[in-house]
């Protein structure tokens, strides 16, 4: 066994210490979270249709459409926030700290605007979570999604603080890109719920 010291070696010292996309372990972590939460949202959608299928009257009496205009406007704000978040990811790819700060700020403003409009829509609803099962499922979906938007906004603010205060490490560029990826997921989830809730033929009739 004297040959151990001379054993062929696989030298990895030349490999980089950061990698992007599916090469990075964190990409798999974030994808895992999206898979978990995506499953949760999917089950919520199934719940909506399960209850709808069994209902005598859907939506129940007294439910009014909160307004196709304002709900669509809010969806537009949310969709618009994808653009600056994409630009953040691109700037992170170039390690362009100025660009990152700018687009993070723009997207955060859009997120806050979205939250404000959402608050307005929710307070204007003609039903509560304890009115009927329809109310329960709409409110739980809105609450869970709002929690995600709040978290996303919080993460943006945290990144902004870090980018102003430092130290900013190479790995943070990967974090920022994954933060954007997660945000696309949060937006996409609401596109689904928007279609289900606000384009529901039953609800459109009582507009």
């Amino acid at each position: 066994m004297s040959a151990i010291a001379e054993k062929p070696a696989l030298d990895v010292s030349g490999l980089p210490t950061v990698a992007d996309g599916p090469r990075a372990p964190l990409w798999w972590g974030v994808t895992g979270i999206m898979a978990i939460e995506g499953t949760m949202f999917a089950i919520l959608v199934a719940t909506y249709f399960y209850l709808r299928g069994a209902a005598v009257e859907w939506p129940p009496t007294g439910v009014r459409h909160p307004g196709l205009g304002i709900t669509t406007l809010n969806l537009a704000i949310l969709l618009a926030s994808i653009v600056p978040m994409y630009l953040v990811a691109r700037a992170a790819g170039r390690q362009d700290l100025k660009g990152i700060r700018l687009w993070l700020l723009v997207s955060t403003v859009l997120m806050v605007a979205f939250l404000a409009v959402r608050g307005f829509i929710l307070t204007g609803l003609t039903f509560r979570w304890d009115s009927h099962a329809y109310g329960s499922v709409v409110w739980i979906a809105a609450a869970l999604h709002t929690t995600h938007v709040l978290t996303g906004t919080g993460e943006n603010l945290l990144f902004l603080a870090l980018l102003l205060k430092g130290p900013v490490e190479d790995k943070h560029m990967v974090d920022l890109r994954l933060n954007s990826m997660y945000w696309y997921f949060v937006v996409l989830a609401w596109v689904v719920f928007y279609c289900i809730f606000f384009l529901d033929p039953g609800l459109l009739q009582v507009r």
Partner: protein
Amino acid sequence: MSVAEVEDVGYAGENADAEERRRLERTWWSPKGLRGWLTDVDHKAIGKRYVGTALVFFALGGIEALLMRLQLARPEARLIGPDRYDQLFTVHGSTMMFLFAVPIMLGMGTYLVPLMIGTRNLAFPRLNAFSYWVYVAGGLLLYAGLFTNTGPDAGWFAYVPLSGPAFSPGKRVDIWAQMITFTEISSLAVAVNLITTIFKHRAPGMSLNRVPLFVWSQLVTSFMVVFAMPAVMLCSLMLALDRLVDTHFFNPSEGGDALLWQHLFWFFGHPEVYIIFIPALGMVSSIIAASTRREVFGYLPMVMSLVATGFIGFGLWVHHMFATGLPQLGASFFTAASLMIAIPSGTQIFCWLATLWGSRPRFTTPLLYVLGFFFVFVIGGLTGVMLGSVPLDLQVHDTFFVVAHFHYVLIGGAVFPLLGGLSFWLPKMTGRRLSERLGRLSFWLVFVGFNVTFFPMHQLGLQGMPRRVYTYLPETGWGDLNLLATIGAGILGLGVLVFVVNALQSLRHGEMAGDDPWGADTLEWSTSSPPPSYNFLRLPTVAGRYALWSRRDDQPEVTGLRSDRREMLVTNLLDAEPDHRDVLPGPTIWPFILACGVAMTFIYAIFNPWGFVVGAVPCAVALIAWFWPRGDMDRDVIMEKRS
């Protein structure tokens, strides 16, 4: 390559190795004492804690079972009243499923996977620490409830309307619902961690078609966790909201639906069975390979069977609901799927038999448990095929026949392999071997005790004894078989006790295990027992499915990973070719603080919905502190800290 052999190398090599070891020890240090408990992020420390904590809950669940058996030993016994009995069977079931079976299986994965795939830690060490503390919080909550006479009492699947606000006032069911939240958060975190680690940190050369069967089983299980557990998290949240803020998800008079609960719960609940069972299959493969010193027959069908079980497992849930009057066509689909699951299970059994066939296995304790698994699990599988058919299911639904069936499947399918697996891997974890004499004794006591306990229950069920009754009348004629079952439970309990004594005794008096006491094939046996905090002096490379058996004399080792910071090698998904180096964080208190914040949030929310808002504050603080760079990872800095 054992440590002793490495140190036999020439003087110069020895010196360099010793120096490298010292550096690695300094970098990958684990804090000791209370501080170590709260801050350690080593997968081995956390894995051992998972296993140890789960065994404590196994003992508690076992004591509850013994109490129930004592009550049922004769007709009209007055040892335990109906209310206490309801709490006991609910907490027994919930403990065994959520606090014992899943955590111990994932805990074994937490300990073994990084060693088996040749890396230094899990991909997300802090998440791992967090998951453990959330799990502990869930367990403490459930038992705090039981000991204050607030133990959940609506059964481990908490059917509405019984568990709803109208029929279960008080906080008992809320405790159950939040315990679910805790344990599911924990399992989900472990699952994502294991998937990432298995995909990205395998030793160079360990392509996906060379991954050990145990690791495959953990991978499939983790995927099942990811897609099954969100269902129960969501429905337990809905139940808690129905009870706390008067939502109507399960309230038929306001447009809700009671069956919705059963669908959502069993969409999780059936895969849960496989989440418990599949890791056990991995253990069986490891033990059989080592005991026969043969490669397991049919690697590809074995892996395909695991994956197939993972998929089919999601298409069975309605067979728990045959008695709810579902449309016949739907029911027959689920009958077909339920019978279909026998195909991958059977394939694996035949592959193992083919491996054993004509070999001269060493009949050590682990293999005995595996053989016991064959016997018990096949019986459970057969009654499973019976229960999959609607007419028979309707006859024995909610009787002791079902109780017999699922104990044959779960104890046979998971606990037997687990006890075998613990006998197999404890020498690696502690460095000392267990006594074979006590091991055999424990096996025979467990095996005989198990069958004497649960076999009569088939007959009792066929005679019509319903499950979850705290007593029965003498005229039913169920007394004798119940007494027999209780005697069996005593023997089974004694067997587990002998196992525990054996394990504890080995810590002091056990023979030293050495690196590889079984002549086994996977990488964990190439490092010392117990392994050092950094697992391997130099990361190994792999040339075949059975890493140690296929190792060539000139098998290269990985060099060039920095030992002055926690560097991990990242390899690519399919072929495990070296891709880049990642840096892991060291010990930290923040995962523990975050777990405390999460616990506070959900426990507060049992009493007041504002708990979610108030609890968000400490959670946010802990997350920010967790995320904020402390500069201890020596990464490349783009922008220095500004004062």
